[in-house]
């Protein structure tokens, strides 16, 4: 048994390992923690001593000592209780407070770390999972740190103080009445590890139920078409039956454990009553001693009960901390390198791709791309979905780094340009528009330090979003998202274009940024873009020929390779992919007009 316990203890030690990271935070609160521990010790002493006063009072009453003396005891009791309360107050406030402050810092650091990680990381990690780490896992760690830490320290002291007081009062009675305690301790320990396992099963079943509900709701159409409603209900019913059964097993185990605990406590009291009663009758101890013993026994209950709970807590915190460490130990893939020249403060906007290849997990997406875009030139990229257009443009702001070859801006490898400077020179409109749930003005001025109203108006005019805003009561202050208006796809895209324009970038990249805008507006936007932006480098990806036909250079990308390039007229003459697309789009237009 003791070997078994030893293994358990060493297991607990390894459990503590992941929590080592917290050291850094705890060190900052060294003073608070030391004060906290001192307060815990004092409060535990007072807590353990209170029954002693009760003992003196009762013995005094038994001896018939006068009321004034008793009044002193009563007042002493209140006095000690008041001090105890005051200390408890400070202690809770400090110790639990530290845990929440650590939580705050940990979460901040977690967020800051996430901000440094590259696009690839966010593709591989689900948002929901990261959020669970930032909230649930951090919370689990905090609770263990606060309540867990407080109880662990406090319980140890309470136990020893009460034990010492009991032993000094009467050795025999102490040992006898504590007989059930080892059993209680073991019961607690083992049932908690049992609960932990059963609970995990219950959780698994719960996620099966969630999966089923999810599947059912997303598959409504098929379920209805094949009249599978009843069958679905049966399946759902079955899952829930199992869940019910598991929950009841857990309930049974819990009931059994709590009741056994109570019986064991009862037996301790019973032993006390029998042996203690006899001891009082044979004048070995006083009645006051006996009463004090009963109170002490009652006081020992909670520390014992919380013992199993704390172990459970540590187990969870350790798992949670592991999950946090996984993220915090991930090195950012994209950052400044040894060759970075920090003296570069601005860029002109000449771009060159030199033998650039890129692959996602061994799957080649771009193959040996060579391309030169002079300052002020407009490059258009067209090609089927999945041909690598987005990937190509993502290389420029270093959202991803080329697997082979190099991307040069102003003749320098972009890895040698400070990431910040590089990105500062780029205005990017991603394929999937992402706006924040703030006001439209805040969204447009997202990428600049201070935005002037005039500039915002100018950026909004070019994208023509300002025209739509006139119909909104709050104009530029209109909130976007759940608590504001839901913009149409085209309105969102145009806001995103203004956001990029406001930076007055040297390089403008539009990744299919007008796909949800109607052709008429699109032409308008393109026109004013060309007027305002003729001397900056721009890269435009589009599926519509009408968008790109005026570009200085058009490349057709297919399967990660440039298969055609030239101006609109040249490509139409080529009778290849571009020419075919051109013809199709003319037909579509004709059909639309029918």
């Amino acid at each position, binding site marked *: 048994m003791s070997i078994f316990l030893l293994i358990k203890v060493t297991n607990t030690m390894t459990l503590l390992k992941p929590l080592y990271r917290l050291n850094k935070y705890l060190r900052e609160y060294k003073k608070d923690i030391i004060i906290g521990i001192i307060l815990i010790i004092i409060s535990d002493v007072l807590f353990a001593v209170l029954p002693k006063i009760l003992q003196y009072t009762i013995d005094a009453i038994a001896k018939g000592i006068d009321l004034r003396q008793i009044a002193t005891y009563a007042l002493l009791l209140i006095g000690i209780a008041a001090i105890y309360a005051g200390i408890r107050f400070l202690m809770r406030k400090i110790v639990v407070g530290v845990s929440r402050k650590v939580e705050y810092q940990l979460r901040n650091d977690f967020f800051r770390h996430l901000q440094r990680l590259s696009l690839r990381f966010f593709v591989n990690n689900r948002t929901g999972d990261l959020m669970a780490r930032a909230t649930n896992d951090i919370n689990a760690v905090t609770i263990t740190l606060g309540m867990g830490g407080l109880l662990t320290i406090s319980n140890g002291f309470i136990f020893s103080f009460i034990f010492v007081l009991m032993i000094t009062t009467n050795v025999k009675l102490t040992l006898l009445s504590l007989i059930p305690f080892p059993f209680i301790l073991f019961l607690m320990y083992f049932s908690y590890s049992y609960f932990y396992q059963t609970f995990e099963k219950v959780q698994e079943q719960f996620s099966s139920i969630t999966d089923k509900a999810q599947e059912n709701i997303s598959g409504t159409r098929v379920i209805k078409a094949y009249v599978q409603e009843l069958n679905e209900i049966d399946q759902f019913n079955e899952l829930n039956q199992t869940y019910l059964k598991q929950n009841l097993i857990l309930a049974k185990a819990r009931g059994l454990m709590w009741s056994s605990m109570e019986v064991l406590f*009862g037996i301790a009291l019973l032993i006390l009553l029998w042996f203690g009663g006899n001891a009082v009758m044979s004048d070995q101890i006083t*009645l006051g001693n006996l009463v004090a013993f009963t109170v002490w026994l009652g006081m020992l209950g909670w520390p014992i009960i919380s013992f199993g709970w704390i172990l459970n807590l540590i187990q969870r915190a350790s798992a949670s901390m592991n999950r946090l460490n996984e993220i915090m130990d991930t090195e950012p893939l994209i950052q400044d390198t040894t060759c970075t020249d920090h003296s570069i403060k601005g860029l002109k906007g000449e771009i060159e791709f030199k033998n650039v290849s890129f692959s996602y997990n061994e799957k080649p997406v771009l193959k040996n791309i060579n391309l030169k875009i002079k300052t002020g030139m407009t490059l258009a990229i067209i090609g089927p979905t999945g041909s690598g257009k987005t990937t190509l443009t993502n290389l420029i702001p270093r959202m991803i780094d080329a697997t082979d070859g190099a991307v040069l801006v102003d003749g320098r490898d972009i890895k040698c340009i400070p990431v910040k400077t590089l990105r500062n020179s780029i205005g990017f409109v991603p394929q999937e528009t992402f706006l924040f749930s703030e006001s439209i003005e805040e969204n447009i001025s997202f990428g600049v330090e201070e935005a002037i109203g005039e500039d915002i108006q100018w950026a909004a005019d070019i994208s023509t979003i300002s025209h739509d805003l006139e119909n909104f009561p709050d104009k530029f202050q209109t909130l976007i998202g759940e608590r504001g208006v839901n913009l149409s796809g085209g309105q969102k895209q145009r806001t995103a274009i203004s956001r990029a324009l406001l930076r007055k970038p040297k390089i403008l990249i539009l990744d299919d940024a007008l796909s949800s805008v109607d052709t008429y507006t699109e032409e308008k936007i393109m026109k004013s873009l060309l007027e305002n932006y003729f001397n900056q480098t721009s890269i435009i990806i589009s599926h519509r020929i009408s968008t790109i036909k005026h570009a200085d250079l058009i490349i057709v990308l297919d399967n990660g390779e440039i298969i055609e390039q030239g101006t609109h007229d040249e490509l139409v003459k080529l009778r290849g992919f571009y020419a075919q697309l051109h013809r199709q789009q003319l037909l579509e237009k004709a059909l639309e007009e029918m």
Partner: protein
Amino acid sequence: MNNYHEEEVLGKAYDSRLLKRLLTYLRPYWLYVVLGVFILLIATALDLVGPFLIKIAIDRNIVPKISTGLFHIVLIYFGVQIVQFGFKIAQTYLMQWIGQKVVFDIRIEIFRHLQRLSLAFFDRNPVGRLVTRVTTDVEALSEWFSAGVVSVFGDVFLLIGIIVVMISVNWKLALITFSVIPILAYIVFFIRKKIREAYRDIRVRIARINAYLQENLSGMMVVQIFNREKKNFNKFDELNASHLEAHLRSIFYYSIFWPSVDLIESIALALIIWFGAMFKYEGVVTFGTLVLFIEYSKRFFRPISDLTDKYNILQSAMASSERIFLLLDNKPDIVNPAAPQTLREFSGEIEFRNVWFAYKNNHDGTPDYVLKDVSFHLKTGEKIAIVGATGAGKSSIISLLCRFYDVTQGEILLDGINIKNLKIEDLRRYIGLVLQDVFLFAGTVEENIRLGNKDISLDMVTQAARDVNAHPFISRLPNTYQEPMMERGASLSTGQKQLLAFARALAFKPDILILDEATSSVDTESEILIQQALEKLMTNRTSICIAHRLSTIQNCDRIIVMHKGKIREEGTHQQLLKLKGIYFKLYQLQFKDRNIKSSAVSD
């Protein structure tokens, strides 16, 4: 993930209408509830016996020093412990049992209700929200049903029991003990109120952190490209700090709360000692009584301070039940007719008669029609193709035929009977529907073909798979028909999934076959297989194909051309080509190029 804002709205803790409706779920178990309350009563009473036995032992034996009888008391005490052991187990189990049963019932009821709601409902509600109703919201009720309702009774019983015993033992000392209750009440109600406010702030603020976090994680690329890391971090820091503030506030009040409760307890103890001693000298109370009061006073204060803990459980249960009832109160809008007609022998004849349909209204309140005056007629066994640009209304025609939605105007007739007069299940059983995106369930290949239909044997499943050319690839799977389909069939190619869907449709032996772009996303390898499968499927069946492939269309007797919600052209391939109208253009656009391209690929 969309629910963070909903979480911000914490409803009233107590709403009698909701509460009444919640309690009706206990009705089927009323006998068990009564039993539970009864057991609880006894368990509580037994709880009070222990200290009372000690009182007797002190007064009868210990103080007068008479050892005979003490052993008796010890024995009785032991007996009480054993009985209490049984009752406690029974009580906790019964409480959990009732709670879990009720929650089980509610969960099934919601799920059953969801099965009856029409597609229009699912169009309006995101999947995530509905899943939350069935799972998380119900779980919140579970806590209330198994920990909240009954244990409140327990607390109340305990309080009443203690009050009764204390008063009957010595009413003066009892009243003195109770004299601290007003202070306790003050603390419980006022500090708890502060704690509740802090608690609510914590929830609201963590919800804000979550929302902001989610936004930043999804938009991290934009944040990084626009060099906004610092600003956004500052905003996050602000939210995080305000969350910390709420926590520190709640810690502050909690730090006041528990020590004050302890202090009041000690004051009561001091009062008991002081007055107890006085009464003892007067000979009014015994030592036993004194000890009894000391013991009882401890048990007295816990439930009072706990009672408000239950308030939080109640509050979240109310919020969840409100959302659940809101869902349950959505009446299904497509229901069976009161007196359904039956088709003895359905021949497969379909007619659309001046059908108008709108999913929603325009801003000015007029219906936004996606189908305008659509009429066509299909004779038994006839096969038609519907073509048109995306958004022309092709899929809507099919949804109406399956009665996923009801027509706004006009009628749809099967063998001359309006489908509104047929039982929905019967109607849908006539139809075999294959959609572009094949939906596979978590389960084996066999289960995905057969679905829940027990009448379809494994032989029939295999036969259907053979008929549509799905058998060869299925038999190559490691577990053939018992191969589990992971994550919506991620391990199968699009063509293979499509063949499975054909097998499913065929296994159900429908009278009408409907294919909605079922062949458009298929690779060239499966193309021929699918072509053969289709011929087999369509033999002797009234069929409607919405197709992107010329080969599929050419198998049909007639082609209907939809354009902007109207039927604009109708006829055979050759007739329509001659018209040089919409079909001609569509043909050039969709079919001709595709053929060119696939031939280019094979070059």
